[in-house]
């Protein structure tokens, strides 16, 4: 297939084959003997928009379902808020323009086949599967449509996708947070389903996550022994970002910005005191923002504790009680990264994430090769912390022995 380069010049590249594209990742996995180590990817993606013909029939409301399905005809408008973005870097990240050229075998879901290809290549045992376009669902102008789209996606994922994957995919399902009653219903409906380890707030939104109306949702998640994830994203339409002229700027700031926003509300409003048994995971913002926010909030809290009266310890202590996903990990200044790991108690609070197939994915070697980590920390971050939190079972005896050795074995 030809890709378009400078001045219309055509460059011939091979059709996409994920296994071949990731052959070097597979070499790394063999060289580092990942098969002995349970590796959990707590943030991987599929392109659910390519499956809307299968997802949308699960919408409950007849009128809204007809409205979206009729809009599937070519040339009609998007049904989920879309944004300007250049994730593929003008075709430089070839798996974007080539994605539709990848061949799969009939009779098994394409997304499952593609997922298993990259998991096998990277040496990943389990992946938490998240959508892509629907990470913008919090920007939908219609609350009822946000509810319906989340409902349909959550049904399709738990009834069609996860059963085909034989347990290697798990998920934290999208919450229609704009509607607390509907969110609670989805927790009650889907919370007990196989492969559901929790729920996910798409953070590209400005809704206050500490709103009283949402307490029953968090309580329902906590009572079920499930987790709550906040998955970030960019948004060029956010008023404060309208002055940015390059996608690199929007991407670099946006992913951290939304999690900084919501984490601040979560911490300052004492959510850690209200739901002490609820595992909370902040996803896809990198790590550099965490020491920044810890220092900013602690500094102000020392002078203004009356504005955060529910807190019984410093904001950074609550932040250390929560979990963080690794990707996109800023490996630029090794001393700064080591300090970050120390500040967040990475050994017990950090979880490896690839974010594959997105453009800034990280391989397990980004953790495995860090010079300052102990063996225990490597095992914990690459999979042990997730295995302990999400009750994931080892896939072989060596993995089981390592989970037991490092105190992460919870699922027999």
């Amino acid at each position, binding site marked *: 297939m030809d890709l378009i380069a400078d001045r219309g010049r055509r*460059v011939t*590249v091979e059709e996409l084959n994920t296994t071949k594209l990731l052959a070097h990742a597979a070499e790394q996995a063999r060289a580092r003997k990942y098969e002995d180590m349970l590796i959990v990817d707590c943030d991987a993606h599929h392109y659910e928009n390519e499956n809307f013909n299968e997802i949308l029939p699960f919408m409950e409301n007849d009128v809204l379902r007809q409205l979206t399905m009729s809009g599937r005809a070519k040339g009609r408008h998007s049904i989920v808020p879309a944004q300007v973005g250049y994730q593929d870097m003008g075709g430089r990240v070839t798996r974007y323009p080539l994605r539709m050229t990848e061949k799969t075998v009939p009779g098994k879901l394409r997304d499952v086949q593609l997922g298993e290809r990259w998991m096998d290549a990277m040496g990943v045992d389990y992946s938490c599967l998240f959508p892509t376009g629907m990470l913008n669902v919090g920007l939908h102008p219609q609350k009822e449509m946000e509810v319906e789209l989340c409902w349909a996606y959550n049904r399709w994922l738990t009834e069609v996708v996860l059963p085909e994957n034989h347990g290697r995919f798990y998920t934290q399902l999208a919450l229609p947070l704009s509607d607390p009653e509907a969110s609670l219903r989805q927790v009650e409906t889907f919370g007990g389903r196989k492969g559901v380890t929790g729920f996910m707030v798409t953070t590209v939104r400005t809704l206050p996550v500490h709103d009283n109306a949402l307490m029953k949702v968090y309580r329902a998640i906590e009572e079920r022994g499930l987790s709550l994830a906040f998955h970030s994203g960019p948004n060029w339409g956010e008023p404060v970002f309208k002055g940015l002229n390059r996608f690199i700027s929007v991407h670099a700031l946006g992913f951290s910005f939304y999690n900084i926003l919501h984490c601040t509300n979560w911490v300052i409003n004492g959510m850690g005191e209200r739901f002490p048994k609820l595992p909370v995971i902040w996803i896809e913002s990198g790590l550099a923002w965490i020491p920044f926010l810890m220092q900013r909030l602690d500094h102000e809290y020392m002078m203004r504790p009356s504005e955060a009266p529910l807190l019984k310890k410093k904001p950074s202590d609550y932040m250390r009680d929560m979990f963080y996903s690794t990707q996109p990990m800023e490996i630029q200044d090794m001393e700064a990264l080591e300090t970050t790991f120390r500040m967040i108690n990475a050994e017990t609070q950090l979880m490896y994430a690839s974010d594959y197939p997105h453009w*800034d994915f990280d391989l397990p070697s980004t953790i495995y090769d860090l010079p300052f980590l102990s063996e225990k920390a490597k095992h914990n971050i690459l999979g042990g912390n997730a295995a302990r939190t999400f009750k994931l079972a080892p896939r072989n005896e060596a993995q089981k022995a390592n989970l037991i050795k490092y105190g992460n074995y919870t699922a027999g």
Partner: protein
Amino acid sequence: MAEQFVGRVSEFADGTRQIVKLGDTEVGVFRHDGTFYAYSNYCLHQGGPACEGLTIAKVEEHLREDKTSMGLYFSEKDMNFVCPWHGYEYDMKSGECISDRKLKLKNYQVVTKGDDVYVVA
């Protein structure tokens, strides 16, 4: 010095590349403006197949005398090749990573013998 056959000069079109195994490693051989270049196929970032992606002219931003921007342009002379995993760009003529010139892919000598192209280990 071991030599690995790459292909025929007459069949190696300008603007194309070939990947060859050289012992335990992989080397990307490019033909650009009539010259052959050969580099390690392992990206210095996360080990991706650095030579298997797009080749694309360097992007430049031109400034006027008063420092105002004229916008973005493709270079008339500098070509990059791009690791398809994450977009790390390398200078075709030097193998340097354009975002940090201290990072440089291992380069290999390319020799031609008649119509045959070889890369030298």
